[in-house]
């Protein structure tokens, strides 16, 4: 096609004009882009820099190291250990089964574990870290850490975790820690933000729970740079928190270990109190359990074993348990009667084997009776009829009042869980509790520590200690807080005349050292550790008249849970008391046969600060004792070194 020259030129010019138009439009838009860039990057830069920092910088709390718990000599009872664990975040892992299979070549993971983990990982939020393995060895941990780049979503973490080196020995008194639960949070008014840290452990029971605020410490803060998935890329800076305060207890780890071992397989409790200031030297409930299991998260099988055991390992029998004190209560009745002036120590009461009260017969434990007994003989042989008689003279209210002075029926302030008040019943108490009038039969039962009277092993030990010293000793567990020793409390006098106390102590001395003393089989022959004590055998069933006529069934022939409780309280040395001990063996049978030997051995261990020499025992018992003490499953001495386990 041919075109006229001028038309071609015109078309070319027009195209150039239009090209300018197009170029101008484009230039204008590019100008707008540049203007926008300036607006965002220069005018609003500060604002966006703030937003960028908000994105990348996260403030994380650093959990403080929990305060240590030590015994009176500095032996570590509760410490912290490095806990190496591995977590997985599902969102970051494309192939969870594959990652777990890879991991199983680095650490011990069975196919069963993997199946369980996959089920859990599927169930939980994809963005939350889920613990795959806990408490790894350093070797396992480093193997995983080295291979982390090949395991997307898998990360390694180091944290502190509570450890109880003496396992079951202090389970009940220390309690244990566990991860904060929603229930725990719901009970708090202003929860510390530190509690939101995943897996943060707080005290759940015992001293760990009661002294939580002291032991916890305060959280530190660190600023970390995170990526879009919240994974920490690096730490920017940190301010350390304050570790929790250390707590030094009055307990003695070796004595406690001996006590638990000595109680053995019995369902029993024992308390040893130092009489200088009321320091609790040992307080143990058997059978016990390993609190470390709870820290790690106890398996349902292990938990079932604990809850299904009829000896109730989880119960703290020392302070929660309240038992009829039986004859160990007779000192209370005796002192109440002496104070009321209704009896004198030398006065005798005739025991025919029973007391007739209306149409009811109250029996003495000895069917044939004790004949004429004074106060000392009544305690030595534990005559019931003597106490039926003097209790009628003094009345229940004064007995209850004396019981409370001696520490029964009052709550001792200890940092332990569910400390029982016990019961020192009087007329008002029965009226309030049952809406019924007090009857004289109740007084007779109470006089010998049966009926409504209930006391915890702790209260019995306190009673023995108060009788021994004549002072209103208060038991204490905490010797020092945060390295500051607490002042030793000065116990006020009980206000009981020395003559009255001497009469009762004389009876308790005869219990162990008299020819017919109920616990004479458990006496010591060393003059430096002469003991005074009192047996108790408390019924947990009613003996009907018909049964009594047919002859009371022997304890050994009864099913375990219907046998009598065996009790014993004691102190030594007789003339300069240093330590008081109480022992309660649930359904153990007789106090003299079962509880007294336990109490004696614990008391001797406390006095000698270790195993006693064999010659403190009567010569006939030495061989047997040697064998028994040698066979006791005591912990290795190296576990009691001080400062052996440092704060991790």
């Amino acid at each position, binding site marked *: *096609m041919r*075109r006229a020259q001028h*038309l*071609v030129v*015109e*078309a*070319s010019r*027009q*195209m*150039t004009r*239009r*090209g300018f*138009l*197009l*170029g101008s439009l*484009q*230039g204008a*838009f*590019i100008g*707008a*882009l*540049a203007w*926008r*860039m*300036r607006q*965002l*990057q*220069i005018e*609003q*830069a500060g*604002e*966006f*820099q703030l*937003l*960028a*920092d908000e*994105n*990348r910088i996260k403030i994380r709390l650093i959990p403080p190291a929990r305060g240590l718990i030590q015994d009176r000599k500095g032996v570590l009872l509760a410490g912290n250990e490095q806990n190496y664990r591995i977590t997985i975040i599902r969102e970051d892992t494309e192939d969870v089964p594959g990652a777990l299979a890879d991991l199983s070549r680095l650490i011990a993971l069975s196919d069963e574990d993997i199946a369980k983990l996959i089920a859990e990982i599927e169930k939980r939020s994809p963005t939350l870290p889920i613990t795959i393995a806990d408490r790894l060895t350093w070797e396992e941990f480093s193997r995983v850490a080295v291979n982390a780049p090949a395991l997307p979503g898998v990360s390694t973490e180091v944290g502190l975790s509570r450890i109880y080196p003496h396992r079951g020995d202090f389970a009940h008194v220390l309690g244990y820690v566990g991860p904060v639960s929603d229930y725990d949070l719901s009970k708090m008014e202003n929860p510390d933000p530190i509690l939101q840290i995943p897996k943060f452990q707080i005290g759940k029971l015992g001293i760990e729970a009661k002294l939580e605020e002291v032991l916890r410490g305060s959280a530190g803060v660190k600023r970390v*740079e*995170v*990526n*879009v*998935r919240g994974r920490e*890329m690096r730490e920017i800076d940190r301010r350390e928190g304050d570790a929790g305060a250390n707590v030094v207890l009055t307990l003695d780890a070796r004595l406690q270990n001996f006590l638990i071992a000595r109680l053995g397989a019995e369902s029993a409790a024992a308390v040893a109190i130092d009489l200088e200031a009321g320091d609790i030297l040992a307080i143990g409930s058997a059978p016990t359990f390993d609190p470390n299991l709870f820290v790690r998260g106890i398996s349902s099988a292990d938990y079932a074993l604990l809850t299904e055991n009829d000896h109730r390992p989880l119960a703290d029998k020392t302070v929660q348990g309240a038992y009829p004190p039986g004859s160990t209560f007779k000192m209370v009745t005796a002192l109440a009667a002496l104070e009321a002036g209704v009896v004198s120590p030398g006065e005798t009461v005739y025991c025919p084997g029973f007391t007739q009260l209306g149409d009811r017969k109250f029996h003495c434990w000895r069917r044939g009776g004790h004949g004429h007994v004074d106060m000392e003989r009544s305690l030595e042989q534990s005559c019931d009829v003597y106490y039926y008689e003097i209790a009628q003279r003094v009345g229940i209210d004064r007995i209850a009042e004396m019981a409370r002075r001696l520490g029964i029926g009052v709550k001792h302030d200890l940092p332990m869980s569910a400390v029982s008040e016990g019961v020192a019943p009087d007329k008002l108490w029965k009226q309030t509790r049952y809406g019924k009038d007090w009857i004289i039969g109740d007084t007779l039962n109470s006089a010998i520590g049966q009926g409504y009277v209930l006391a915890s092993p702790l209260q019995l030990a306190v009673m023995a200690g108060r009788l021994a010293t004549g002072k209103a000793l208060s038991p204490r567990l905490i010797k020092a807080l945060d390295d500051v020793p607490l002042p030793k409390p000065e116990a006020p006098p009980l206000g009981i005349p020395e003559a009255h106390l001497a009469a009762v102590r004389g009876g308790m001395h005869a219990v162990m050292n008299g020819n017919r003393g109920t616990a004479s089989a458990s006496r010591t022959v060393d003059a430096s550790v002469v003991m005074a004590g009192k047996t108790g055998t408390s019924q947990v069933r009613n003996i009907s008249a018909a049964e009594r006529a047919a002859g009371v069934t022997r304890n050994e022939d009864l099913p375990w849970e219907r046998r009598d409780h065996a009790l014993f309280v004691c102190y030594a040395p007789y003339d300069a008391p240093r330590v008081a001990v109480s022992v309660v063996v649930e359904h153990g049978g007789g106090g003299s046969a079962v509880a007294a030997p336990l109490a004696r051995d614990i008391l001797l261990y406390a006095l000698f600060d270790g195993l006693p020499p064999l010659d403190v025992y009567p010569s006939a018992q030495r061989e047997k004792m040697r064998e028994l003490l040698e066979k006791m499953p005591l912990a290795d001495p190296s576990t009691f070194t001080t400062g052996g386990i440092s704060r991790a």
Partner: protein
Amino acid sequence: MSYLDYSLATSPAGWRKILHVHWPLVFLIGAVSSIGFLMLYSVAGGDLGTWAEPQMKRFAVGLIVMFVIGFTPIKVWKGLSVVGYVGTVLLLVAVELFGSMGMGAQRWLELGPIRLQPSELMKITLVMMLAAYYDWLDPQKVSRPLWVLIPVLLILIPAALVLKQPNLGTTLLLLAGGGAVMLVAGVSLWYFGAVIGTAIGLVSAVFESRGTSWQLIKDYQFRRIDTFLDPSADPLGAGYNIMQAKIALGSGGWSGKGFMQGTQSQLNFLPEKHTDFIFNTLAEEFGFVGGISLLALYVLIIGFCFLSAFSNRDRYGALVTYGIATAFFLLIAVNMGMVMGMLPVVGVPLPLVSNGGTAMIILLMGFGLVQSAHIHRPR
């Protein structure tokens, strides 16, 4: 007359063409692509193999393609325009019938190891077709309705096919690119006024259709528009991307956070950081200085193309050059407008910089045509 004067006066042939290549343009393209390699290296966390190295290889291949196309006389390309156009349209039809799905849209054609994206190729062949059309058409007839209708159909047929995939971004680029060629070719401005008026009406209709049975665009496309209109309304949902992109860009400030120090991109807050949002990584790490420098390089590339077109008396060559330059401009404008929150997120890569094989090679093919028009322009 010296040898050089002589050679400039006539169209060069053989090896002498090398002297007539638009070298500044080649160097600018190389510079922009190098910035791309650097940023791809950075967003991969300092790893060459992830994105940067494959991109370099594609660039090398693309450069060879560019020179081959550039050294081939422009007449050859003019002759192939119709064939190319028809062929690409057929490929679009083939995608519709046999294409692979990706991100909810049919865009690729798997041909053995090659993954062909005909909609990208269409940007070039459409420009060639329209240039050939206007080269053939008597300039006096360009504004007559019938002669306007033909190029409109030439644009609408591929645009409709691409919209059907659906790929809104490329559709708009085809419409705008084709329109630009028509504008330069001298079509009366009244038509453009009418089209813009109609477009406004159409956009209103699209919004009217929302939620009704005759809804004109997909839900996700509506959401993109919503997000564009107010990204902060849903910062963790659909607006997250654009919000994070703006934070990355804005926090770069005047001189940036330093190479590989961009927290938004290195910590993955920035989405699609190696493709659509790569400019934000650049702006975060090199600040306003870096961003404006890249923009300046782009302006120079477009400017040199326009200058070449102004001085080209060959109508086909000039039109192709305008068309390619405009297509290039549109990619920049839409991508940068998008990443700076001025335009909705439509998924358009930043030319020569974003990671992506087809786009890089197609762009270099386009610049090959520009070179060919430049080298073989009438003296």
